[in-house]
């Protein structure tokens, strides 16, 4: 099910009403679990058993693991859990990519290609719920949390519908306690939850789908007729689209959960106002970057093994982060680029720090501008259909330069709308750099907030084009 569909509106009103009406906490959770599975089946009912079975296996194995006091045995159980989860992920998400690349190599060597090809669709949200489950199992292995005996609570932890298909990636340590104790719901939580849902829908429907997507799609799907200007328009539009699409989804998710009394982790905090790449990853898809940090980067050794090991760990973490997004070289290159940015930032920090200390404002401006430029450029790889197309666009952006004012005025109405909106988005993030959205909503006097929410709802209602799938659903 998608948040920006009328089906979800009807579903959510029904589920929230039933949830509020029921008194027993256990029954409330039963309602949420049933609703979560219905929500998932709204996309493709045939993959629901996969979600249930993999969740059950992880719960059972984690429980067995927790019952063992031997580190060796626990390690073996963890290995089994990882093999099960990564096998499912590899089959559904990476099999075709792997075989295509093997075949590319074998064809160079003159060998016959492997004819296997998985024709099964990618189960929606598989990367997200696999990471939910894995974080739980690793935390149980490490002894950070106790394995839950409640199958229902575990199933609900994995499948809780607001965060099921596109995050934020929730950890048991964040939500386990919330599942145990009845949630308190009051006017503040419901009011804030609904307000967040409206802001999220506004980001998705009005900004991402109506303003940014048409321009980004037009130029990213065009071959041969791009110029330096249109390549920049495309890259900037996609930067706006990916943020509004994904942040819109998670804002809706956080809002929907809040209406039901649950608090999910914040996933975005003005990423385009970042002054450095490590700062960017503390602001963009925070739940994924912290997952990668805690379950990959630190176990690899983090920054404890000297410059070379740290560089390796950063590159490996970001490469795998790129691959997590999709089985394509474009995602791997995107991840590698971010790894490279982090390595360069780390290597040059000591060189720039005295300069930043002497000219703090200039240092901050240069840091912001450099980060933004690199992030926007890297998005080209994320969005492009092929490495070749991405390379052409990057070349146009940096070789077919400088841009003239005449070119800017020659752009279409849609291009100018997208540029205006992305400029406004960057400014908004710079102004509210360290202020969370919910605090902004909280601080606004009610008449101003009422006008904002009313205006957003009007624009959402008047933007009824073809709905686009949330970009992050494919991951």
């Amino acid at each position, binding site marked *: *099910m*998608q948040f920006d569909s009328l089906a979800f509106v009807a579903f959510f009103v029904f589920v929230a009403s039933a949830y509020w009406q029921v008194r027993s906490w256990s029954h409330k959770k039963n309602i949420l679990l049933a609703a979560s599975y219905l929500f998932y089946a*709204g996309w493709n009912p045939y993959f629901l058993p996969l979600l249930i079975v993999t969740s059950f296996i992880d719960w059972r194995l984690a429980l067995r693991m927790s019952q063992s006091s031997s580190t060796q045995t626990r390690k073996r159980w963890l290995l089994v859990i990882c093999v099960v989860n990564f096998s499912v992920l590899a089959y559904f998400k990476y099999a075709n990519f792997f075989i295509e690349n093997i075949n590319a190599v074998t064809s160079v060597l003159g060998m016959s290609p492997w004819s296997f090809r998985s024709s099964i669709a990618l189960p929606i949200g598989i990367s997200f719920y696999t990471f939910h489950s894995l974080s739980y199992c690793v935390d149980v292995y490490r002894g950070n949390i106790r394995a839950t005996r409640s199958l229902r609570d575990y199933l609900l932890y994995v499948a809780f519908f607001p965060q099921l298909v596109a995050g934020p990636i929730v950890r048991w340590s964040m939500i386990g306690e919330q599942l145990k104790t009845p949630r308190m719901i009051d006017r*503040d939580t419901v009011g804030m939850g609904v307000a967040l849902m409206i802001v999220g829908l506004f980001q998705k429907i009005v900004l991402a789908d109506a303003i940014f997507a048409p321009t980004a799609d037009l130029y990213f799907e065009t071959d041969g007729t791009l110029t330096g200007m249109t390549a920049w328009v495309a890259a900037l539009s996609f930067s706006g689209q990916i943020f509004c699409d994904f942040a819109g989804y998670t804002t809706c998710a956080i809002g929907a959960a*809040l209406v039901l009394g649950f608090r999910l982790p914040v996933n975005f905090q003005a990423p385009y106002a970042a002054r450095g790449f490590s700062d960017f990853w503390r602001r963009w898809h925070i739940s994924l970057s912290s997952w990668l940090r805690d379950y990959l980067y630190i176990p690899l050794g983090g920054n404890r093994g000297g410059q070379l090991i740290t560089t390796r760990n950063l590159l490996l973490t970001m490469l795998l982060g790129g691959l997590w997004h999709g089985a394509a070289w474009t995602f791997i290159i995107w991840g590698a680029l971010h790894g490279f940015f982090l390595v360069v930032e780390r290597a040059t920090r000591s060189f720039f720090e005295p300069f930043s200390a002497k000219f703090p404002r200039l240092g901050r401006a240069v840091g912001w501008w450099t980060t933004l430029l690199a992030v926007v450029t890297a998005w080209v790889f994320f969005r492009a259909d092929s490495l070749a197309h991405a390379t052409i666009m990057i070349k146009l952006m940096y070789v077919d330069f400088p841009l003239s004012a005449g070119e800017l005025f020659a752009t279409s109405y849609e291009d100018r709308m997208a540029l205006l909106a992305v400029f406004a988005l960057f400014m908004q993030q710079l102004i509210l750099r360290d202020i969370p959205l919910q605090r902004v909503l909280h601080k606004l006097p*009610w008449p101003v907030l009422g006008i904002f929410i009313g205006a957003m709802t009007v624009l959402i209602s008047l*933007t009824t084009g073809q709905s686009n799938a949330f970009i992050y659903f494919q991951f």
Partner: protein
Amino acid sequence: MLLSISNSSGKSWFMTGLLAATIWVFCLFLYESTLRAKGHAPGVADSQQLWSQERGRVSGSNAIVFAGASRTLYGIDLGTVQALLPGSKPVMLALNGRYPVATLRYLAEESDFNGTLLIDIDARGLADYYWDAQLPANRYFLEEWTPNWAVHRRILNVLQTKLSLLNPRLGFFPMLKSWLGFSPPPFLSHASIASTREGSLDFDKVDAARLANMFKAGLEGDLKAHPPKPPKQWLEALAPLKVWVSSIERRGGSVIFYVPPVSGHQFDLSQEAYPRELYWQKFINHYELKGWNFEDYLEIRSLPLPDSSHVSASMKPRYTALLLSSLSAAGLL
């Protein structure tokens, strides 16, 4: 970091909600009133989702699927089909302005379908330039259509019949573009469509002669951009269609290619570019397909076509009845 909100903020959420709801209702009322004052009426808007809703009904031996472009979308009366062929399940898959070869290809792969497929297509539409015209709709159905969107579209169908502001053509962004002078204001459409995707044209709302001239200019331009290939080359390229038809027939289904009526310049230009004997008839005879052409039926030839290409809403039942009875008489249906 978990979301943190302060409780007991003192904020009046009730007043906030009330104000937001008031603004919402007031603005939408104002917008809807403005649209109505300009002559726009509520109605279902066609989309890939609406097409997919109908595409999802294609199954079984009683399905009668209409594929084609505007002449079928706005010409076939589904009520008449059901009345004349009791027990049948008519499904409208024609798409305005798009030739239907891609739909034939995808229906050939639809193992649940073993009914009748009526394809409105002329010799020009068979040319390989146009094979992918309906590909996006078919891909959308296969890759993006979900139970969620099926429910969404059904609710939207109901709402669109009540509010003209829910027509994407009349939404805020197209209007803004027009208000800023970057596009003409949205035209008053003479076409309407039902939630079953049965369309109708009301020629009282438009200058039909002007439309006929527009279609003529459009056809001339298209023939220049996509000139006819030599008959032999054109015919050879159509071999895959026979394969697709055969796969439907092997399941017990049936495929009928038909050319709906056109007149005036539409007819003359088509004949000049694609003479029937050299193209259409060769296609039917060479691949041994079921074919029907309006030129062979005097009653249908004499139907009034105000814009030289489409029948009016009032003529739809008559045209549909004539089409079905002549198909039956010819042993095709």
